[in-house]
């Protein structure tokens, strides 16, 4: 131990005397460790860290996995299915359900929209957190005839009710109903995602048709001694029974228990995070290879010192400790740097996630904590061994008699050069792999996040408004509301055009299997899936879209007239390749109404989904089949934000109990919608950039070492008449083989990595030739840049000086 402390002390002193080397090694390893700590911190937060509830390790959510589409993951289910699951589950203490939606609160001023948790009578028991005041929602509150009640979040109680301790028993108007305040939850309580208030979910699941119910998320706490396997096994017959009862078209999946911490990102999200973890693992390995190379080079220059130490009686173990000690000190400093960098990056992540991903779970706190610090220390120890061992082992076998035979010049440079050479091949291969993977991901992300969705979105302001469950009960009332609202907004000054749509372009839509009249697709699994958006007739005018065939919606398309549908060109080509689609009739098999739509027109393709892909898509008129929640889309003159006031005025005139929310320009809205993709894409790009810089630095370092070691030889060759071309060839040959071998290995592994990303890549092929070509070109360009300085140095070697070189 004393020896170790002495070596550590000596290592600190030695590194202090080599500040440039120390700064470079600490910087390189710090970058790698920072990437690992950051990524682990992020992954731990979204996948592993237990949420802040009692016995959180026993909390599970029940996800629905689509049996037809592998990996299709839904963290919710219909309330009817929840009742069946609840009946069959024996391994959970409480099992509760909730969905978060819009809650309008009025009564003492203008209506305001809040995130409302629509809870069953058990969800607070699942959370296991008692209210600060009053009580929580009980099963008796969820009966349709029960008096409406509301539980306030601590923040809402403070902001809207001045933290009045007598608030219990007061009546407020929530979603148009007078509701009694029955409780206030403690500060920071949320379950599972952020909500401002909670009301009882009074959907009568026993009477509602499947298509009309709102999905709920189901959570449960495994009872003490309960079996997860049994709990999972109990879900299979429930799924089979639902399939038998509702039909394979309506339900063809399974239920799966997922730990609550991992339930919010789904399988695809988990795959992405694992891929990112692998990516940072590569970055760390590249950093380790770099530091290893630096230590090897240092050991080569210090080989005489090591030999002297050995001659003076240092054992091999002591020499290994001596060499590793520097690695330990470098790793310790790099860990501090990595923690600092990761902390800054995680703070940024926290800001971005909470600003752009408003449905993220409340317990996500991106920060360096003891778990991340533990991983940091473990990664640093691993890095020390990976980076330090080659140099330590090499240096621990000095050629002792060389001290006597040639005055202390010892010849380990060649052996060290071979290790360094191999490490650089490894680095180039990893960098190649990481760059290729990142390029594939970045292309996929760029596709998904492009603000060009195929329509003109400049000068457009959007907002959302909804008719909550229990209001506007008749479809005719809903149609009237939307028609009136659109007309009132249109009448406001400064408005060029206005429309409502239940989904904005590039924001994701509903979809489902369709039947085409006169065609027999057989099983539902072979039917085409078609996206659908419900819009008001002015939609196409607002987005400045002209029909390519037929007509658009107009005054002829009313609730009582023939149901009309407009399809996109993609659908026209894929489903009606040899005929005009006009006049053909299609039906959404899963729609609550058995309604055949007649195709009246074809419009140009617009990106509907979040992933940027163009698929079959169709438009339905809100005046024929209304939806409860719609985006208002307004095109006006000047700053789009100036359009907010006219929209508010029109809404207040139409229904003062409603409030606008998600007031965003179109581009802002799309940016927020695709925030997850952007965050992931940015992370991949940053990791690839770091890997490239590290690989270039590694190549530079090794080549510089190579030239340094061969200075005398180059001098001799010069003295014997070698010209620039020959010296250049000698140096370039050393790096060229390394680069080509590394690139070849990396490019061989890239397809495997690409394939493992699966659906995450969307429309991007894992074998995209453009990306493969780009990776090879970038790697070669970086390699050439990295070799320039050492090559120039080799060409400038003066033979006379080189022959005096020691």
């Amino acid at each position, binding site marked *: 131990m004393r*020896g170790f402390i*002495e070596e550590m002390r000596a290592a600190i*002193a*030695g590194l202090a*005397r080599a500040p440039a080397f120390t700064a470079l090694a600490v910087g390189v390893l710090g970058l790698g460790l920072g990437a690992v700590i950051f990524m682990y911190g992020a992954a731990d937060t979204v996948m592993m860290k237990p949420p802040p509830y009692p016995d959180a390790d026993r909390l599970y959510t029940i996800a629905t996995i689509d049996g037809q589409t592998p990996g299709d993951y839904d963290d919710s289910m219909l309330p009817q299915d929840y009742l069946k699951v609840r009946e069959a589950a024996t391994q959970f203490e409480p099992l509760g359900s909730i969905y978060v939606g819009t809650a309008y609160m009025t009564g003492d001023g203008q209506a305001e929209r809040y995130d409302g948790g629509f809870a069953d009578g058990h969800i607070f028991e699942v959370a296991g957190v008692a209210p600060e005041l009053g009580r929580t929602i009980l099963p008796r509150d969820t009966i349709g005839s029960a008096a409406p009640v509301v539980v306030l979040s601590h923040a809402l109680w403070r902001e809207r009710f001045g933290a009045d301790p007598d608030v219990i028993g007061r009546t407020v108007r929530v979603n148009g109903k007078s509701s009694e305040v029955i409780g206030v939850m403690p500060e920071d309580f949320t379950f599972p995602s952020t909500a401002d208030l909670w009301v009882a979910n009074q959907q009568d699941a026993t009477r509602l048709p499947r298509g009309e119910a709102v999905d709920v998320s189901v959570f449960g706490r495994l009872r003490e001694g309960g079996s997860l396997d049994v709990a999972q096994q109990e879900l299979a017959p429930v799924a089979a029974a639902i399939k038998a009862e509702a039909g394979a078209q309506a339900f063809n999946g399974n239920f799966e228990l997922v730990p609550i911490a991992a339930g919010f990102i789904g399988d695809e999200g988990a795959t992405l995070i694992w891929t990112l973890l692998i990516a940072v693992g590569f970055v760390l390995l590249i950093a380790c290879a770099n530091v290893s190379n630096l230590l090897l080079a240092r050991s080569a220059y210090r080989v*005489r*010192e090591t030999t*002297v*130490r*050995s*001659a*003076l*009686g*240092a*054992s*091999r*173990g*002591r020499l290994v400790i001596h060499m590793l000690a520097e690695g330990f000190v470098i790793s310790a400093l790099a860990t501090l740097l990595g923690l600092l960098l990761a902390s800054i990056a995680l703070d940024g992540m926290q800001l971005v996630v909470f600003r752009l991903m408003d449905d993220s779970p409340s317990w996500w706190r991106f920060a360096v904590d003891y778990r991340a610090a533990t991983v940091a220390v473990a990664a640093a120890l691993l890095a020390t061994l990976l980076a330090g061992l080659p140099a330590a082992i090499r240096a621990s076998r000095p050629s*002792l*008699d060389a*001290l*006597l*035979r040639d*005055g*202390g010049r010892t010849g380990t440079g060649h052996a060290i050069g071979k290790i360094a050479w191999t490490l650089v091949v490894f680095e180039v291969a990893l960098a190649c792999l990481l760059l290729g993977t990142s390029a594939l991901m970045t292309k996929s992300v760029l596709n998904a996040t492009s603000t060009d969705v195929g329509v003109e979105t400049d000068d457009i302001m959007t907002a959302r408004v909804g008719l909550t469950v229990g209001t506007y009960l008749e479809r005719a009332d809903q149609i009237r509301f939307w028609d009136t609202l659109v007309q009132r907004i249109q009448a406001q000054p400064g408005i060029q055009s206005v429309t409502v749509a239940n989904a904005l372009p590039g924001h994701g839509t509903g979809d489902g299997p369709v039947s085409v009249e006169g065609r027999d697709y057989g099983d539902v699994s072979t039917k085409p899936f078609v996206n659908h958006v419900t819009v008001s007739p002015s939609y196409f005018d607002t987005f400045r879209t002209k029909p390519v065939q037929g007509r658009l919606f107009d005054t002829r398309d009313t609730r009582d007239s023939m149901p009309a549908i407009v399809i996109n060109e993609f659908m026209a080509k894929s489903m009606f390749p040899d005929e005009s689609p006009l006049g053909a009739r299609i039906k959404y098999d899963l729609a609550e109404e058995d309604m055949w739509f007649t195709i009246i027109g074809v419009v140009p393709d617009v990106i509907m989904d979040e992933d940027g892909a163009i698929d079959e898509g169709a438009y339905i008129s809100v005046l024929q089949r209304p939806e409860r929640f719609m985006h208002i889309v307004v095109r006006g003159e000047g700053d789009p934000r100036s359009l907010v006031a006219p929209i508010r005025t029109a809404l207040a005139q139409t229904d003062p109990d409603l409030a606008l929310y998600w007031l965003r320009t179109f581009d802002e809205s799309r940016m927020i919608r695709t925030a997850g993709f952007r965050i992931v894409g940015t992370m991949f790009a940053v990791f690839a950039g770091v890997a490239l810089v590290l690989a270039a630095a590694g190549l530079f370092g090794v080549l510089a070492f190579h030239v340094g070691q061969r200075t005398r030889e180059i001098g001799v060759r010069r003295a014997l008449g070698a010209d620039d071309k020959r010296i250049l060839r000698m140096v370039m040959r050393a790096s060229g083989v390394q680069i080509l071998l590394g690139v070849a290995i990396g490019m061989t592994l890239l397809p495997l990595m690409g394939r493992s990303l699966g659906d995450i890549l969307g429309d991007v092929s894992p074998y995209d030739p453009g990306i493969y070509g780009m990776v090879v070109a970038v790697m070669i360009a970086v390699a050439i840049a990295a070799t320039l300085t050492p090559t120039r140095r080799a060409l400038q070697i003066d033979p006379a000086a080189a022959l005096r070189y020691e």
Partner: protein
Amino acid sequence: MQQHAMIRLEGVTKVFYTDDLETHALDGIHLDVGKGEFLSISGPSGCGKSTLLALLGLLDAPTEGRYLLGGDDVTTLAPVARARVRNERIGFIFQAFNLIGDLTVQQNVELPLTYRHGMGGDERRKAALHALERVGMSHRVNHHPAQLSGGQQQRVAVARALAGKPSILLADEPTGNLDSRNGEAVMNLLRELHRDGSTICMVTHDPRYADYADRKVQLFDGRVVDENTLIDLSSRRAAKA
């Protein structure tokens, strides 16, 4: 002067093997060095002087034969034991000084003592200072090697060799990198150490410095020869060339 053999080599041979070549660096060497003896080893280039010193210093092992140090057979010791013997019983003085540039004079002299089990920091510092006083370098303890002249560096190297109170001092061309004035100074220092009882084996090719020794050993083609034989063999080789 000679009491009993501090060093005994019995039929020591050292062969270096390369891919297609076998080089006999030492060929059946028999040598005794008594406690307190000052021995010089001389001979032409390539005769095996440095190889012999490497074997004596346990920096290398013989291919054949036996090496007894203070009566202990050290021929086939394991690497860890060899390192311990080097540290506790042998002091090295190299031609190129081989001081560690990053360490101060004091730290350089203490260095072998840091590898010694059970020696505390204070004890090390005292031993190092004492050794530096013996070579007249105690006023330079905080200097780095680069701040010293060649002669001063070699005196520090001698102090480093002495600090651990070794049984023998092995000096490899200790004046080889020094001018004549500094060379004389270092040789006088070795003579003083010898007078104080140190056992010294010194490799040198300079007859002036070989004269400082009690006994001279001549090597030729890996064998110990007497001085007359050496002259004869050397002149015959020169004539043949």
